């Protein structure tokens, strides 16, 4: 069962480094198997570039199974491409047609500066977690795990929020470059669990302050983040974040 290969035109953002001016460069690839993943298609292109002694296209990727959150391509105007609930590495070429032109760009946000080509610096997300995305427990001395009973419903909701992979698609797709979905996922996970209650107010206050400081925009409820999140984190987490934040402010 030989499947017909795809011939594609790629318009890819090339940028030498953070300070250089970038531009779209056009490439052709031919006879790409529909079973090939999007990143494997870029591997094939890169192999061709190396053959021609040209610099391959830099893009972030690692696990290639949708969990590490490293891949971050803006494909034809959508983060992670034209499918829902997936990362770029889970996008397969069967979603494209022979003869298609595909635009590939990096995440674009003031808080995620470009390092090279399609690679951006997302350390701002780490800084937000460092501001308070944890429970303050040291190693050792924790009580028996079953001493804390947690209603299944809350545990499941916490897990829904905790599924965030920190890829940044929510920021990339938001017209305000807001990080509210990312921040709300961590705040929600810990707010839903008794372990997170002790520091809930300090946590939400510190994380929101850090988010603002790092240049992320505000949330205007366009819900684009929810639509593009590869882990389908719900916008109801942002509502919970707002409640937590207001509660913390009124009580301070």
């Amino acid at each position, binding site marked *: 069962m030989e499947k017909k290969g795809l011939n594609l035109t790629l318009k890819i953002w090339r940028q030498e480094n953070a300070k250089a001016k970038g531009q779209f460069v056009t490439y052709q690839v031919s006879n790409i198997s529909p079973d090939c993943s999007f990143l494997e298609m870029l591997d094939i292109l890169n192999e061709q570039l190396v*053959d021609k002694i040209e*610099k*391959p296209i830099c893009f972030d990727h690692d696990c*290639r199974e949708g*969990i590490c959150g490293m891949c971050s391509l803006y494909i034809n105007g959508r983060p992670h491409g034209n499918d829902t609930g997936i990362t770029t590495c889970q996008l397969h070429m069967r979603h494209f047609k022979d003869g298609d032109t595909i635009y590939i760009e990096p995440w674009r946000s003031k808080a995620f500066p470009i390092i090279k080509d399609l690679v951006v610096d997302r350390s701002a997300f*780490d800084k937000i977690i460092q501001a308070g995305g*944890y429970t303050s427990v040291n190693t*050792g001395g924790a009580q028996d*795990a079953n001493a804390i009973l947690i209603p299944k419903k809350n545990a499941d909701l916490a897990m829904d929020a905790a599924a965030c992979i920190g890829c940044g698609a929510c920021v990339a797709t938001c017209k305000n470059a807001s990080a509210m979905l990312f921040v709300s996922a961590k705040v929600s996970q810990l707010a839903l669990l008794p*372990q997170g209650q002790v520091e809930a107010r300090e946590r939400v206050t510190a994380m929101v302050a850090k988010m603002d400081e790092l240049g992320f925009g505000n949330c205007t409820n366009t819900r684009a983040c929810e639509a593009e999140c590869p882990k389908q984190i719900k916008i109801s987490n942002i509502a919970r974040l707002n409640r937590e934040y207001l509660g913390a402010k009124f009580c301070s």
Partner: protein
Amino acid sequence: MTQIDSKIPQGPLAQKWTNYKASQKLVNPANKRKLDIIVLGTGLAGASAAASFGEMGFNVKIFCIQDSPRRAHSIAAQGGINAAKNYQNDGDSVYRLFYDTIKGGDYRAREANVYRLAEVSNNIIDQCVAQGVPFARDYGGQLDNRSFGGAQVSRTFYARGQTGQQLLLGAYSSLSRQIKKGSVKLFPREEMLDLVLVDGKTRGIVTRNLVTGAIEKHGAHAVVLATGGYGNVYFLSTNAMGSNGAAAMRCFKKGAFFGNPCFVQIHPTCIPVHGDYQSKLTLMSESLRNDGRIWVPKKKEDAEALRAGRLKPTDIKEEDRDYYLERRYPAFGNLVPRDVASRAAKERCDAGFGVNETGLAVYLDFKDAIARLGKSVIEARYGNLFQMYEKITADNPYETPMMIYPAIHYSMGGIWVDYELQTTIPGLFAAGEANFSDHGANRLGASALMQGLADGYFVLPYTIQNYLSHEIQTPRISTDRPEFEEAAKAAKARIDRLMGIQGSHSVDHFQKALGHIMWEYVGMGRTKEGLEEGIRRIRQVREEFWKDVRVTGTADEFNPELEKALRTAEHLELGELMARDALLREESCGGHFREEHQTADGEALRHDDQFMYVSCWEYKGAGEEPELHKEPLIYENIKIAQRNYKD
């Protein structure tokens, strides 16, 4: 000559760790502030160790090659983490977890280390719950468990199919807290290129900043290697693209012994290979074997029709299906350990019963489970895995069975460590998958997460103090020392040499060539002739690599081609070491199957009288044969037997 001393504490097995902790040396808080520790890698072992060291008051620097510590490949572990909590009241205990792990490892792991692992397993669950890890719970609010291969109890804790992610994010959050406090300094996108020794002791590392290409020097009183496994020597594996064995090889070349390099795990349930362009193999969690049944057709003509697409798997009648694991291993059925399940799949495919266009796949079928429990229950248990499968293959596993085939997954071998997790280089420790210690010749499912976190949270924080207590007089390590300059120069020279070749083939070309040789000759079935041929071919590829590799770009910029070239250069040496170790071990045990050594019914046949030891390899210089040392394995608490999963 370096001596092998495993430093196992005195006393009965169950008392060893307690005795060790009672008599080890400590470092007082004022001195901790003056001592620096470098941690390489931010997976479960590295992140948990660095966070714990920071909490204790040491100065820590932690390095990772990814853009964030949260990307480490521990994140991709799906199924779960074992602990001997016995919450299910099904007869579990520390001893039983210890016993299952030793037996699962085919009697090639060290008793004392494994017992300690089982002992601290319960603390890990407590710690993670305190951090807010959202483990699965039942309706009473208590923690839920599932079963995994090689065990007859339900001792696996899980967070849907994303247990590794949740545990890693727990460790990452603890690490983040220490970074904010200033006790840990983070160096993302920075790769270790060499270990620096001064007078035989570990004193620091040389790194390459992956964004700028700058070579940097970092001093410390101790270094922890937590850089994971070396499955990517095979090119196609379930590992992340960036996972590599280069840091371990660099330590090996500085004098750290390499333990059991030929012990790699081939995981039975991965999505089969589909094309030359393929970059990695995706694992389908072992937890699926709780409810999925593995089969191939009984009749060869059915298998042929399935391969040609003339029949669909759902067309095959119940009586024409061979549930070969249930047939061969009635007691454990679909939940036999990974090495056994992988070999059984290979046996059926080699015999001509394989499916998929290639004939290299078997079915994993959920039909009966869906009929018994309903689709919604299966969806709640495995929804994300089913979705992942469908995205890759465009098949819906609720309607048609999954197709799976074994793939390289985990390395049980690694840098040799003693009971304190210290390597043969004083001050260099190895943790998690990077060390060789706990899984023998085969790792049981849900034990990698347990070992990574045990090493990082509960072992190293004690044992590293015992070493550092002797270092309190050593002032902060200056990187102006000539040893640092030499290491930096050597690293630069290696980079210049690679950049200067300007050959005709890409790095991937060579890594793929190595991978093919490894899979063919050092894969699931190994023979003397095959291994000898493999070694010849590896040497040939290595020689070609150093003559003909093409690394584009420059050394002083963000350059993934150069990163890959530096790693592949190490893999080309590691591959030979693995083959050499496999050639020497003339027996079959766990994941290491020498075809000359099997029982009448095709099971692994050990030769305990000759090979009940850890092979520890010492580097003797470029182009020289490494020297073998043996650490005998002594079993005082377990009766040695042939592994039996039949009755």
